């Protein structure tokens, strides 16, 4: 998309072979001389051609074998002689499937205190408690919508634990664990889900679309991947903000969202502007019903990082400790090298996409069960803690019961809360004074409420709002 339409059109009018511009002739001549030089010299082999005269890429090696010149994969920096390496980009992990440290992994490499490890696990346990209670609340019609984090507790909490509480978060929607890690209150959580009066977002968005300035968690929105270029801009802003040079932006999204144009835009912008952003992909195998195999043909999302000149790592997303250390290292590299880093966390979406989805329509219940058994981030973390004597069955039961109680009580409180006052429907569309059209429309609703507010369908809803709609009376037109 350039303004050169006029230019290219005039070129199109030229008959090829009749009028060739000067620079084309020069370029052709130099190509011919290079070729003849190459074929006349016995010393020169493929890959040893003289370098330095390709305008776009002076260090590109020349090949004459057409077949060798095609390629479709990215070669990782090192494979450490691993014989399984033909499987493409390697995956970083510290624990095996049951939470035992892999050979060569030391406690120093993990570098975590008992207190932090236990907090991680406690927060990981909180997610499924919220999930099961709110999922059922949605089934009972008490809330309109819900999305669970089943199976991705390790990826989300692990990444949150690798960050500072002031690092800026741009999320997709399956990362509420980051807020929980940062001690976002369960009451605010529930108020958002129920659209209560004290919801920080004013009861305007669907459930699970959290946001909190205090927690540096930028409000979630439904359009996928839009947060990716935004995160690049926020990273650039951080770099230019005095006192924030030690912080990074983390931007979460799924492997499906990575197919959006905004993924490309954001990755490229973060890279060319040298912005300290961690792009964290939760590759959980499904975008609603679309399996990853129908989402891309390359080697996951990680293979795209190098194409943007971006430092990239693939990590076992069900190994919360590996995720934590990958994020810590990514942050330190993003800051010291002033560049973005891509992390692809391999995991599995154990739950349905949302309450509007029955995933057994496109994948077998058996497959889900075997994932839960075989590679469960909670089991792995629990075993790691138990092996160190930091956890036991009693603590497990106590924590789960405590979480459950806390969640149910907060839900009950939120359910009883009033919705925001009706007039707030119009507010916040613009900052500053309400424009005249909105004032007029607010007056229109005020009059309608006066006339029809007693209709059963209306009065029932009005009663749920703070001030029971009385706040609208002052806006009636005289």
């Amino acid at each position: 998309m350039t303004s050169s339409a006029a230019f290219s059109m005039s070129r199109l009018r030229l008959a090829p072979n009749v009028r060739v511009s000067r620079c084309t002739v020069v370029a052709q001549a130099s190509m011919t001389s290079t070729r003849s030089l190459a074929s006349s010299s016995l010393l020169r082999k493929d890959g040893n051609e003289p370098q330095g005269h390709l305008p776009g890429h002076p260090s590109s090696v020349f090949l004459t074998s057409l077949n060798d010149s095609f390629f479709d994969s990215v070669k990782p920096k090192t494979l450490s002689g691993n014989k399984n390496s033909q499987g493409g980009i390697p995956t970083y992990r510290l624990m095996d499937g049951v939470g035992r440290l892999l050979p060569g992994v030391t406690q120093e490499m993990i570098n975590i205190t008992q207190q932090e490890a236990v907090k991680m696990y406690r927060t990981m346990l909180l997610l499924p408690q919220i999930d099961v209670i709110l999922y059922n609340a949605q089934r009972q019609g008490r809330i309109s919508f819900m999305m669970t984090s089943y199976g991705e507790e390790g990826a989300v909490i692990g990444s949150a634990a690798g960050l500072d509480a002031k690092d800026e978060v741009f999320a997709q929607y399956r990362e509420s664990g980051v807020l929980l890690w940062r001690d976002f209150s369960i009451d605010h959580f529930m108020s958002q889900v129920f659209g209560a009066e004290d919801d920080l977002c004013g009861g305007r968005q669907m459930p699970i679309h959290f946001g909190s300035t205090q927690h540096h968690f930028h409000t979630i929105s439904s359009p996928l991947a839009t947060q990716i270029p935004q995160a690049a801009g926020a990273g650039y802003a951080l770099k230019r903000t005095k006192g924030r040079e030690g912080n990074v932006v983390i931007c979460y999204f799924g492997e499906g969202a990575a197919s959006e144009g905004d993924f490309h835009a954001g990755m490229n912008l973060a890279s060319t502007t040298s912005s300290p952003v961690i792009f964290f992909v939760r590759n959980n195998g499904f975008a609603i019903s679309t399996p990853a195999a129908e989402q891309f043909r390359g080697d996951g999302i990680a293979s795209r990082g190098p194409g943007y000149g971006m430092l990239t790592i693939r990590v076992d997303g069900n190994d919360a400790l590996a995720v934590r250390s990958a994020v810590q290292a990514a942050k330190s590299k993003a800051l010291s090298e002033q560049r973005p880093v891509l992390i692809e966390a391999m995991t599995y979406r154990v739950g349905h996409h949302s309450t509007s989805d029955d995933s057994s329509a496109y994948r077998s219940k058996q497959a889900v069960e075997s994932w839960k058994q075989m590679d469960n981030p909670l089991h792995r973390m629990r075993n790691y803690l138990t092996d160190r004597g930091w956890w036991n069955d009693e603590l497990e039961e106590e924590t789960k019961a405590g979480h459950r109680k806390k969640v149910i009580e907060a839900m009950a409180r939120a359910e009883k809360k009033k919705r925001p006052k009706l007039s707030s429907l119009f507010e916040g569309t613009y900052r500053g004074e309400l424009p005249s059209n909105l004032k007029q429309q607010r007056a229109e609703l005020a009059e309608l409420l006066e006339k029809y507010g007693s209709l059963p369908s209306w009065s029932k809803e009005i009663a749920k709002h703070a001030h029971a709609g009385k706040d609208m009376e002052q806006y009636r037109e005289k």
Partner: protein
Amino acid sequence: MFGRDRVFNTPLSEQGIVGFGIGMADMGHTVIAEIQFSDYIFPAFDQLVNEAAKYNYRSGGQFDVGRLTVRAPCQGVGHGALYHSQSVEQFFMGVPGLKVVVPRSAVQAKGLLAASVREPNPVVFLEPKMLYRSSVEEVPLDDFSLPLSKADVVMSGQDVTLVSWGAPLYACEQALSLLRNPPNSISQHIPLSIRDAKVELIDLRTILPWDRETLVQSVAKTGRCVIVHEAPVTAGVGAEIAAEVQKNCFLHLESPILRVGGWDTPFPHVGELFYKPDAIRIADALVKCLTY
């Protein structure tokens, strides 16, 4: 002058440019993003409509991108054809949360741009590129700004209200002199009785939220209204103005509200003269309106 960290190139990606600008503005930085031509703003439509416009509302005022201004050259330029000519304001007029501004001259451009940059809401600032080098006037070097959402009555009158914005305002002025002194070749189409008509010429300046009060007051006085814009007529900004004026001035109207715009076709390369609302077409509409 200000340094490369303040004035810099981006990769060629409109959705990226606007998304990046949103992210910076969200962090409290003032951002002035440029889209090379408004014809190429559509890849960023999602970021502008779903994100920038709704950022403050959806977060309960916790996060906002009010410091974002997106500038883009717009309207015809004589030979820009389909993708260097478009008027895109109507696509943003239906987007609560955005402000949309179009200046008509150098002074207006400086004053309105300064106001847009300082505005606590995201602004799409559309610059008529035809005027980049043709609008020459004394512009104060000092800081000043002109109010948004305030139309400017360029010329006051009581017989008909003529409203436009951007470059077509100059065609409106030409139409007024045609009306007063038509050349012999067309004088039979301009009745003597209306050559002295006093036309109230209004520059709307802000498309959203637009100045309904000034427009309604003017038409209540004149009883007639002609709206001129370069964008296609169907669902153009003129449709919104006409509906609102009709609702508020029903008892004052002496003739139907007329709209003069681009035809409902893509913007053509050759034939621009017959596509854009030029002086003759505007004069013809004024004649129809005044003689109704």
